[in-house]
Structures are given as C-alpha cells and as structure tokens.
C-alpha cells in the first residue's frame, strides 16, 4: 500500500516527517562509520538529497527507515570509491583531538571504543553499528547493505571478536580451543 494512502496525508508531508525523524539517527550512524563529523554530515545531506530525489520510489512506509539507511550506505560506498581510499585507523586519531566529550566522565573509554570500532574493516563496522546502535534485525541489515543474512552474521561475529580483543583484552575463543570443539548448534 502506498504510504500516502496509509496515513492519509500528502507524500510531501510524510516525507518531511520521515526526514525529520531520522536525521539524527542517520548522522549518528554516518559518524560511527566515518568518525568525521563533517563527512558524516555531508553524507547525511547527500542521503537526504537522494531520498528527496527518489522519494516516489518509496512505496512502503514501514520500510522507510531501512530505505534511508540503505541510501546512506550507498553514499558512503560512492564516497569511498570516488576517493579511492580506505578510512583507516589513522583517520580516527584526528577525530579524538577535535571532539572533546565533556559530557562523559569516561572520555578515555569512549575514545578507546570508537578507536576500536574505527579499526574494524568498513564492512564489519557497518554491520556492528547497524545492529548495536540502531538495533536493526539481521534481515534489515542484510537489506540495507545488500548482503545475505549469513554474511551479516559472519561479519558481526568477526567484528565483535575484533572488538573484544581490543577492548576486553580477551583473545578470540577459537584461538584458545581446539577447532574440533567449535560446533554449531542446529
């Protein structure tokens, strides 16, 4: 059902509300992916421009949030492709200098976590943040990033394992146990 019929309001108004309600979330996600406030903001603006341009393609309002995040992911992909560069951990070091987190008592912890997240390959970083920050289901993440659910699970697994190594100073479980002991429960 077209969302304009579902809500009985104009498409333009519904779209405006959609943008208003999701801009903060999009920005937070973009920042988690890039660790760069300006770049994150530009990506969100690009996302909104593209969403604005293609708003007629959105037929199911229930899928609107995923649709916006998918556009955001595509914008980042386009940006990285255009720049032909990886947003490496080196970039993250700069961010810490310019974003004093006065509101946190545990500034060091926040920095440490962000640095660890930034060290993840972008594919893992996207999955981890979409699941942990936005609490998207695996199926939604799969749709947003255009990958199978199984890939979402494996990337999430590897991403969290790496974070655990960095943050909890705990080696991956697999390395401390014989491989034969690792089994999947059906």
């Amino acid at each position: 059902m077209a969302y304009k019929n579902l809500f009985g309001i104009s498409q333009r108004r519904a779209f405006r509300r959609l943008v208003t309600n999701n801009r903060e979330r999009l920005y937070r996600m973009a920042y988690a992916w890039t660790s760069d406030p300006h770049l994150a903001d530009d990506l969100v603006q690009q996302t909104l421009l593209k969403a604005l341009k293609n708003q007629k393609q959105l037929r199911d309002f229930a899928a609107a949030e995923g649709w916006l995040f998918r556009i955001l992911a595509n914008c980042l992909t386009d940006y990285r492709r255009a720049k032909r560069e990886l947003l490496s951990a080196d970039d993250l070091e700069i961010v810490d200098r310019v974003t004093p987190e006065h509101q946190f008592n545990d500034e060091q912890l926040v920095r440490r976590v962000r640095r660890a997240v930034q060290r993840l390959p972008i594919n893992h970083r996207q999955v981890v943040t979409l699941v942990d920050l936005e609490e998207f289901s695996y199926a939604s993440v799969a749709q947003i990033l255009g990958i199978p659910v199984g890939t979402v699970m494996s990337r999430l697994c590897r991403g969290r394992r790496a974070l655990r190594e960095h943050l909890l100073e705990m080696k991956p479980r697999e390395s401390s146990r014989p491989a034969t002991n690792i089994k999947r429960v059906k």
Partner: protein
Amino acid sequence: MNKDDKISEEQLNAFLDGELESEERSCLFNEAELSDDLDQRLCQQRKLKELVKHAYRDVPQPNRLLSGRRTRTGLVGLAMAACLLLVVGFTTGMFMRGHLEPAQYPGGNATAGNTQAVTAMENYILHVISGEPEQMGLALQKAEELLSTAEPGYPRQVEVVANEQGLDLLRSDVTPFSKEIRALANENVIFYACSKAIQRLEEKGVEVQLVPEAITRYSALDRVVIRMKDGWQYIKI
C-alpha cells in the same frame, strides 16, 4: 566437552540481538545457568554491545538541517568535506537540471546567459559558490531578472544562497556589491549565508562579517533542500 562449547559465537550474538526464537533462548538461558564459562561469554558479549552503544550515545554534531542547532566542530576532514561539498553541489545542480523542464528553468546554465521565459508563480533559489566578482554579479543580475519577469499580481520569491568562495558576496568587508544587495533586499530578495562556510572560515581564524541584509541559520545545502521541498526551483550559478 563443556556444554557451552556447543554454543557458537553466531548463536551468542543472535541471542543478544534478539534473533533467536523463544525456545532457543530458553535453551541458551538454561545452559548459561549451568556453565560459568558460557555465562561469562554472554556477559562479555553484552558488555561489548553496551560499550559500542555507549561510545556513540552522543556524537559531535555539525550544523543541523532541521533542528537549527549549531555546535562547533574541529578541523577534521575539512578538506574532504569541502571536496565533497563541491561534489554534492555539482550533483545537486546536475540532477536538478535533469529534472527541470526548460520552461521552468530560466537561464538554464546561468553562466551561459541563456534567457528562456520563466513561469510567473515559481520561486527560485540561486546558489552561488564562486568568489569571482563576475559570477557574483551574475547571480544578482539573475535575481533581478527573475523579479522583473514575474507576472503582475504574482510576486515571486527569490533567495540567494552563498557558500564556499561565494560567501564573499555577503561578507561586508569583501563584497563589491553592497549597494546592489541592499537594493535587491528592498525588493524582498533574501540573502542567505551558509553557516557551515562561516564556521569553516572562523575555524581558520577569519572573522566573518556579513552585510546587514544577510541571514544565516542552516548550511547552504540544508537551505537548498528545505526550499526544494517547498517546491522552489534551483539554479546554480
């Protein structure tokens, strides 16, 4: 072999992320009751998840699109952002050109001096990014032209938005067009200075003073988006 050895990381993640069915969740709860090791793994995974959430609960904010809040950020990525802004501006212009019918797009490429007829009731937002006096003058000329071609009884709204080097148009100590801006403002042309461009200059130590007719609240692109959503036509100079 311990029971928890059967539990894969994928299963633990699925459990924490609420992806397991009720029966599977109960099963895992039970196993965690019996195994300290599994319980510890669960706690660690949960802690990890909460850490990530915590780290991004509040993130540094740039200028906002709709809330109008303004916070200061650093110099990080300015070069990248500037490049990206150029790309975005260019892209915006390109797709708008692609979407506007010739009759709706007076002047087409403004720099080409094309002078097609305009539709009476449309409002226009002119986006100035160049600091070249010729381009800035062209923008003012276009604003005047748009006003003059409005049908009597159907006043047209025109807004000039300046960012990047185009901000010079609205800087009182730089612009060579103070009189023209004042005259156009008297004709209800709105002059809008990009908050982000101002912020970037200020971060470089440049004191930005705007002509009294200029207003600022959003970034240029934010303003363009807002006006476009209101149905305004976009012209990039």
